[in-house]
């Protein structure tokens, strides 16, 4: 054993004692304070928003920033809580369901499962292949995976009680976002121009809907329709928002697409958010955020938010509890990013610093 290890062992023993002591204090504190019927999850990170910071590809420096209701930004909460462990390489997305956070780490080919309110690591789902997004329905988590750049994508079904993959369903190329609606799963195939519909009972594909090239984000609007945000072809300026009617999903022959709104731009990142009343869709390019009303039939005439020159918008989210819009600027991944906050009417509130490449948000329910 060398000197450094020796110091390290001594230190970690000390830290363990300190941790135990802190736990004792925490437990006493919780016991004393939890005397009302407040059944909200408790913990350091029980409120606010989590920002998913992708990190630089191949550098393993992706992480999660927490921004509390008290407006305190805490960087790398996963590392902070879990003894400095790195979350991994290309942190793609985070989904919260029943106070469990599913953090997808694309190039580390895993999903880290944490307690959302404390960010303590629970377990890791491995043996995934370039995972992207997660949705949870009852006792199952559904994880989309690209698999590779040449193989069709798939959805892995994880039994969250047994913590194991129980089925894999092959879908289209570049399986990206996933949305559960009425016991049906909608999966956007981002390397193609289709959305795959899967029945959660049979776990079989029941329909493939043709949309526009590079479909990504899937959003459900106030009328129960599903919007597909399509980035379009490289340089084709043919990005579009496609509205589909889920009531047609079970009939192979019926047209699912209600309307297609051409945006005359490309979106490198077909990500979007919907307002809390589910009537306005917010999508973005590198320097502009746009708002579209679900009843609109043509693209918006101008930008809703315009960034300064050199801005690189990379993610958007809306906190349904506070009606605040969060827009992430990746700053070209050269360093820490910034998240700008706005009121629903577009008035700027403030901003805070994140990790590298902020690209997604997860809000407490």
């Amino acid at each position, binding site marked *: 054993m060398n000197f*450094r*290890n020796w110091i390290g062992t001594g230190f970690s023993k000390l830290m363990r004692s300190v941790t135990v002591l802190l736990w004792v204090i925490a437990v006493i504190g919780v016991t004393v304070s939890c005397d009302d019927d407040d059944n909200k999850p408790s913990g350091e990170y029980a409120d606010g928003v989590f920002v998913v910071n992708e990190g630089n590809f191949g550098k*393993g420096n992706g992480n999660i920033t927490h921004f509390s209701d008290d407006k305190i930004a805490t960087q790398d909460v996963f590392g902070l809580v879990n003894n400095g462990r790195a979350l991994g390489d290309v942190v793609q997305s985070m989904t919260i369901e029943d106070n469990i956070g599913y953090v997808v780490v694309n190039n580390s080919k895993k999903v880290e499962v944490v307690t959302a309110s404390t960010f303590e690591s629970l377990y890791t789902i491995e043996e995934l292949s370039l995972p992207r997004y997660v949705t949870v329905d009852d006792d199952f988590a559904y994880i989309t995976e690209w698999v*590779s750049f040449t193989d069709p994508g798939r959805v892995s079904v994880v039994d969250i009680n047994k913590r194991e993959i129980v089925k894999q369903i092959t879908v289209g190329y570049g399986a990206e976002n996933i949305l559960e609606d009425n016991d049906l799963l909608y999966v956007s195939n981002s390397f193609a121009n289709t959305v795959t519909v899967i029945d959660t009972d049979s776990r079989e594909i029941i329909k493939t809907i043709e949309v526009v090239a590079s479909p990504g984000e899937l959003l459900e609007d106030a009328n129960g329709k599903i919007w597909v945000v399509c980035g379009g072809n490289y340089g084709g300026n043919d990005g579009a928002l496609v509205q589909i009617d889920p009531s047609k999903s079970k009939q192979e022959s019926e047209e699912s697409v209600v309307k297609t709104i051409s945006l005359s*731009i*490309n979106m490198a990142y077909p990500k979007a958010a919907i307002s809390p009343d589910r009537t306005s869709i917010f999508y973005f390019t590198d320097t502009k955020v746009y708002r579209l009303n679900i009843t609109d039939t043509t693209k918006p005439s101008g930008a809703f938010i315009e960034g300064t020159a050199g801005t690189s918008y990379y993610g958007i989210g809306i906190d349904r509890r506070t009606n605040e819009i969060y827009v992430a600027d*990746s700053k070209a991944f050269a*360093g820490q990013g910034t998240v700008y906050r706005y009121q629903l009417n577009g008035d700027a509130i403030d901003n805070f610093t994140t990790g590298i490449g902020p690209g997604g948000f997860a809000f407490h329910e």
Partner: protein
Amino acid sequence: MIVRAGVLVCLCVVWVQASMAQTDTTYLREVQVYGLPVTSHAVGAKVDQLEAGGVGTLSDKLRSDIPLYLKSYGNNQLSTISIRGTTASQTAVLWNGININSPTLGQSDLALLPLYLFDELSVRYGGASALYGSDAIGGSILLGQQQPSFIKRTTFTFDQQIASFGRFDTGMKAAWGGSRWQFSTKAIHTYLGNDFPYHSPAVGYEKKQNNASVRNYGVDQQVQYKINDRQYVGVEAMYTDNHRHVQPPVTNNDSHEVLNDRNTRVSANYHNQMSAGILTATAAYVFNDEDYVNGTTSTNRSDQLVLQAGFNQDYGSRLNVRYGLSYARYSATSANFDDNLAEYRFDGYVSSRYMVSRNWLMNLDLRQALYDGKYAPFTPSFGMEYYLLNQETQKLSLRGQTSRAYRVPTLNDRYWIPGGNPTLKPEDAWQAEVGVNWKRTMDSFGFESSLTAYRGWVNEMIVWRPAGSFWSPQNLQNVDLSGIEAGVSGKWKTDDRSLKTSLQYAFTRSINRDALSASDQSTVGNQLPYVPNHSLRINVSAGYKSWAMFVGGDYTSCRYTTIDNVSSYSLDPFFLLDAGVSRRVQWTKLTAEFTANVRNIFNVYYETLENHAMPGTNVGVSVKVRWDRIKN
């Protein structure tokens, strides 16, 4: 380690300790310092001559011998250099005077170059585009072979090394020379399992490195023919083949990426020592073939055909002028290029050296290059050396150099689909340096020192940024460089004992001058990523009769990995210590040298690239056998 650069009185090493390298077995031999033709017009500049020919990569050699920064994806993995705070693309790598940086990437992976296949290696610091053309902004690495001697000599060398983590190196060299013909053959094979254990704080437990094995081999053949006392022709062909599993970041368990690189380099040289001057002509062909395999294979190929002619003429005893022309055709194929991507470049240069007096030397170099029908910046360079003391036992000289340098945008920068920007301008830099060298020689004792201070301004640096639906490069960044390089060395020798020490230190500031975007003001005044402020190398070797031992230390200070200089993304400073012992045995014409060494004695976990593990303590044994016969 307390190093205060401002007040540090340090002095630099001009003789470079022969091989403190990790894998070399020949560390007792001293480097012969003599002017390479390619550096003879580098008056006033700092040049380090290092020993080539050992087992190991160019990257390992540079890292152990001089305080430069090598950014490595792992042990023998992709490795790029930073000289004087610049980027790998701002370093020219020349083989036989030809820039072998990849035309598509604009840089060289120094782990792909086996040192065994080269006889000569030197590093020229600072801007040198007037001599070497594009890329020579921060410094230049010059690789080459010995000039032919046409003496009757036969040598045979065999090297074998076995080291930790499944490392086997086998090398052979054979050379035969006569009065007309000279042949030299070199071959090297390296296998490295690289399954070393490491304990990264980002992982939290000891892990074994996966997917990092490396297999390299290379051959080099030279043939020279002396036409008459004035003329000779030579041909060299080199082929290197590297099969590497790409070491993933410590956070990734399941990784299968592979890089296969095949590099072919052929050159034919003609040399004619005419009464009016020396005429040299070179025709060379360089072919780079890289496959990246990750489920599917993507192939990038590039080649260059180069024709060069130079004429070196003395005007009286004081003035020497070299003129030259160069023509190059670059081409590349990749799924991200249009078919038949090719471009032509022409360079014309004049280099002159004037001896004002025995103690005063001046140098003016000029170059104009034309690429793809566009003018590269016109690059002048002016240098001077003045000896305050110029005696057999003591020399004290002042030197200075100032120059302009440039970098032509790479083929990727201009033609990558999508995003390539054909309107990019070349990167444009100015730099100036001053130095003092002091050398004292006594019977059994020698001492040398040097101190260099420099400043540089790099403008129009190319940065890829998001631009609409894809990323695109722009001439965006401006960087101020400044630093101090200092070294001191001493050697002491009696009949059967010897001691050599050397200490070299570099203080480097590489400062982002302007914000890259309006929301980016906080990065102004920050140090560029992966440029340590302090870098130190200490080498000590001692010999007694046939025995020798050496100790080598490397201190590298904290490095930021992001332009905003956030400490949570920075890499910890490290100090590495290597040591070894060797014994040389001689039987008439046969010499054998046995070496055992330990590297990273303190088992330090360190990274030169974020979250990429480097090995802890490791050991190796090696033998070198050399048979040498000279006929008179």
